């Protein structure tokens, strides 16, 4: 079966985000693959290694230069080929929004005919978590979000799904959309031989304007972006009595 994996280029997880002029300041900031997308790629590659999947295609929507880097990582981890939808618009929700992304993916799914679409559960920039469910809805496919484990064959998958109350075990018929959560796997490092091989892998580059008939205009407008208020320093107390006193009289929680 064919697997389509979505990979998003986001501000590196380890970098402190800066807010300036009512927007996230992306100047000179380190960008990397969304950690949940990394997990999705790892899962797809493992399925290929265990012969469950025949081909893994990585897809990204992003700028010409930056998007290529994200796809190189996906290819170096083991994806077979990639599709790069180029756009210089911001993909962190401010310009390209989940609805537009879902529509593009829907179009690509119709073109490539995969049995499984693997996505990260959410982008760490937008924290939306919407593309998985939206895409499944548009395709009329079942969706499993927050996958924590996955087993199966080319017809159906058995997955554990994270919920606030615990883990659900579900079975789903393919084709399906699955969004990946932290516990699903530990992504591999890109090995040197695979990085070299990745250079020769095919990347199909198309501009986002080729999807103009899909109505990709954002329907949500971001009004304001501010940093959260700075954390207040904690108060050190000298004794249990003082702690009780403060909890009672200052914090008023007991």
């Amino acid at each position: 079966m064919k697997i389509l994996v979505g990979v998003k280029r986001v501000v590196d997880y380890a970098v402190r985000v800066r807010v300036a002029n009512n927007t996230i300041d992306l100047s000179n900031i380190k960008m990397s693959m969304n950690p949940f997308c990394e997990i999705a790629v790892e899962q797809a590659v493992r399925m290929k290694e265990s012969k469950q999947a025949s081909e893994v295609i990585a897809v990204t929507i992003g700028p010409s230069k930056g998007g290529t880097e994200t796809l190189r990582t996906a290819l170096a981890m083991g994806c077979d080929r990639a599709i790069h939808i180029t756009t210089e618009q911001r993909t962190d929700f401010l310009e390209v929004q989940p609805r537009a992304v879902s529509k593009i993916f829907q179009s690509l799914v119709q073109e490539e005919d995969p049995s499984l679409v693997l996505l990260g559960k959410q982008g760490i920039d937008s924290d939306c978590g919407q593309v998985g469910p939206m895409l499944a809805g548009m395709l009329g496919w079942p969706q499993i979000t927050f996958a924590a484990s996955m087993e199966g064959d080319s017809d159906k998958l058995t997955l554990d799904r994270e919920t606030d109350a615990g883990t659900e075990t579900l079975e789903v018929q393919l084709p399906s959309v699955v969004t990946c959560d932290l516990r699903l796997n530990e992504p591999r490092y890109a090995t040197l031989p695979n990085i070299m091989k990745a250079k020769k892998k095919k990347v199909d580059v198309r501009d986002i304007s080729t999807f103009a008939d899909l109505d990709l205009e954002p329907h949500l407008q971001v009004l304001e972006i501010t940093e959260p208020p700075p954390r207040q320093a904690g108060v050190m107390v000298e004794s249990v009595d003082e702690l009780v006193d403060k909890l009672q009289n200052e914090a008023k929680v007991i």
Partner: protein
Amino acid sequence: GGSVPIADEVIVSIQKLNTIHNLDETSGILKCDAGVILQDLQQYTMKRNFMVPVDLGAKGSCLIGGNVSTNAGGQYLYRHGSLHANVLGLEVVLPDGTILDLLSSVNLKDNTGYDLKQLFIGAEGTLGIITKVALHCPRLPQERNVAFVACQDYKSVQQLLIMAKDVLGEVLAAFELMDQGILNLVQQDMKIPISMETTTSINTKNENYPFCVLIETQGSNKQHDMEKMEEFLEKAMSSEICIDGVLSQDLTQVHKMWDVRDSCGPVVKSTGYLYKYDISIPIGDFEDIALEMRDRLGQSHPSAIVVSWGHIVDGNLHLNITTPGIFEEDPSLTKRIEPYIFESVIRRGGSISAEHGLGQCKNSYLTIAKDPKALNIMKSIRTMFDPHGIMNPGKYLPDDHRLANHNGTL
């Protein structure tokens, strides 16, 4: 043992002198109190897109004044230079109470008179207490890439180092070595990014490579640095100088790879009693000295293991010996190691303490490590600053009577 009292000394802590004064963004000159924690200084500079030129595993607790007093080296010395180069000024309180101001007028270049601050850098508190530091800080590199690679023998490691300097050129920032022994210990705590799969008739298991090297590049342009890194790795792999490796794809992986290297010290410390040696020797001798010690101890103390790692690009090896599971010192083992190891280092033209200093454990070995004329001048300097011998007595230089009786051998 430089900060450990020998008898009934008064311990002075400067941790309350912890104000960061200012960072001039055009020149990169940072002025602060000596009691600022290194990590706090790093966060302050990072916010302003600068970096402190020294970085060590102990950053969460060590103070910048202590780093200066011990001339701390760290992993970026090759790229950013030592504190001798980066410290531009100091305020020091001398043993007689005089406040020596070598800081209020600080410049990147200043050739007016003897460069007194150099005496205090690395003096381990013997000439005075550093209270303020002026440091030159480089701009924060926008791009950091780390490769974790394997070599099948030590000859390849040396070839890899030369190739790294050639191909990576100015973006090479760190080149750290780990031998199989230390990798085996670290593996008990965390996953090593690469390992050999060896198949026996019974099962397949993961063995560590003979040598692993962590290579970091730092630069201002992602594409440029990536191209260089990939060209270097391609060359290294195709010439088989390097037989395996992985390359970081994001900062989290950069940190994870450094975690492996940073855990070398703590891991060996928790394995057994630690006999720790920080030496500078010709890079070609690194494997040889480890083999020499293994051979020497193999006969007398077969339970001891010799592991090594270090800043190979600086010619600095951390040679560690430990008795797994035994946490008490074995005096016979210490005797078997010292002074033999120091003599071996000196014979090879090396330094018995590359970056860890002398303190109270290595000071007596200065009599064989240094020319007596040099030692006598050092003693005179110390006496000039501290005639009553109140600063870290019994440490740093050999005890007086040893110096007087020195005849060139131990």
